[in-house]
């Protein structure tokens, strides 16, 4: 399967802690994106990192990309209860026209 793999499958932390999710893939990519999905707002784009970038920040989010290891990580700092959701990485395979392949997702639970 070409689907990305995410680790861990589930993560439970307390509010204020940091959460780290990892994504691995098997092909060359143009870019990698992270999305959040919860019942309230559906699937929402968080951040995009291109294959020639190594790190990107957006607010409390930090994404890294290691193309040599074919892996990416998403760090959420100072988590809040509202961060409770499923997080998916999605990569745009090289040679395709923006055809995203989604990972299996990490379910994050942030408790008070």
């Amino acid at each position, binding site marked *: 399967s070409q689907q990305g793999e995410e680790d861990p499958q589930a993560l439970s932390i307390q509010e204020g802690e940091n959460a780290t999710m990892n994504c691995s893939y098997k092909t060359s990519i143009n870019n990698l994106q992270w999305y959040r999905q919860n019942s309230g707002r559906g*699937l929402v784009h968080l951040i995009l990192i291109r294959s020639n970038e190594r790190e990107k920040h957006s607010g409390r989010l930090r994404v890294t990309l290691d193309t040599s290891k074919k892996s990416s990580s998403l760090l959420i700092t100072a988590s809040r209860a509202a961060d409770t959701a499923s997080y998916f990485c999605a990569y745009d395979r090289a040679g395709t026209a923006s055809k995203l392949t989604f990972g299996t997702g990490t379910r994050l639970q942030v408790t008070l």
Partner: protein
Amino acid sequence: EAGVAQSPRYKIIEKRQSVAFWCNPISGHATLYWYQQILGQGPKLLIQFQNNGVVDDSQLPKDRFSAERLKGVDSTLKIQPAKLEDSAVYLCASSAGLAGVEQYFGPGTRLTVT
């Protein structure tokens, strides 16, 4: 700015029946996608349109699924006949470009086939 609209939000049908889903993308977005998301999994791309032309439909089960995007705006996805394994959320997304851009997703249609 209005988001991606989908209808219906929920649909329950019996196996072998047919069903259709409708999607209205964000105004001006040339690229439209249909995804299938089975419970507990990530979305899987079924078909991708650029304007009213198909860019990729390699994962669309063409013996039972069909999709069209008339006039390069709205799109419909049809399943005929439905099978139990088609139970899933069907997501429509749109983007302004074809490569290296974020996709905007609609709320999805939850299909249950009994």
